[in-house]
């Protein structure tokens, strides 16, 4: 039981570390590229901005959820 918990914790820590690297890359690449475009959109086309905002947050939710699920599955299989 204790061994299982320790293994789960180790897998989770590795998942968190990989996830942190991916998220940092994401900050620099995607947000940096999108920042100016979103700012222009927010000042000039509010309705389009509102639609894009919802699509972006929903899209990010689906993608990151998939990334964490795949990461967790892969790591669990590897450590089993």
């Amino acid at each position, binding site marked *: 039981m204790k061994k299982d918990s320790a293994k789960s914790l180790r897998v989770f820590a590795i998942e968190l570390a990989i996830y942190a690297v991916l*998220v940092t890359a994401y900050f620099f690449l995607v947000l940096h590229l999108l920042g100016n475009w979103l700012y222009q959109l927010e000042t000039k086309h509010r309705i389009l901005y509102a639609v894009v905002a919802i699509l*972006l*947050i929903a899209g*990010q*939710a689906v993608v*990151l959820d998939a990334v964490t699920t795949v990461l967790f599955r892969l790591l669990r299989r590897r450590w089993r």
Partner: protein
Amino acid sequence: MFFPISHSHINPVYLVLVGFLVGILGGFFGVGGSFIVGPALRLMGVDWNYAVGTDLAHIVGKSIVAARQHRTLGNVDLKLGLIMAIGTIGGAEGGAQLIQVFKRAGNVNTVVSWVAIFVYLSISIFMLWESQKTLRLGKRLSPRKPSGVKDADLRTDHSAFGPVTKKIQGIKIWPMISLPTSGIQEISLWIILLVALVGGFFSGFLGGGAGYIRMPSMVYVLGIPTHLAVGTDLFEIIISASYGTFTHAIKGNVDILIALVMHTGAVIGAQIGVVATQYFAGPKIRLAFVPLPLIGVAIVIYTLVSGHKL
């Protein structure tokens, strides 16, 4: 990191950590966590209008992740969630209109503060009484489980408030509908809409997603098992918070870049919160819920006493 839309400088690590914390709360309790995110953004110098709108955008993303996870565990009643979304949006508009009335009368801050204190305290006191009574009853009636067995049993969630819930379910006002996923054979559509309307009203009046009102209402008034109430509430929040995000974005109150950064932390937090619900029975989740509205009370009292808006 500079966020040009709201003209603010915020450390992204701070945003990720705030997102992580409210992600856990959201996944475990089915709440949006606006009572934490709003003040946390305000502390970093973000204007209130941006704090409110951005929080709603981040809630959409976090709720998608948590609701998806809850759905895989069978904790989402889609039919109930869709019906409730209609009532919530209607109620939110009503709450926002009442805010305008008090704004014109010039006493909006005082009225909203006292209503918030009363509502939050009532929820905490009632849930503390009910969950403790249910846990005591459960201990007396059921033998001890062997250690290591998961504590949660989704379909047999008991409550000391159960007899009152049964009476509410017995009210026959046409149309009557069934909610097989939630284990409810028959309930009036109007009662569901009323619960959603009240939740939506407080969402519009007090701000945030009002999960602290809707989740307990679903358990005590509609008789939904706690795990399903948490999952369904999250699904319903996706719809109502998307609507809120859209209207706030049009008014220029959403910095989507802040929401996106905060959401990266919330993804992990929400998953931890969802997994944790598997290890706790309904009354224990309800007991753990008690401090949340009290945090809201503390924040409101602080703003009343100090005169600051945090």
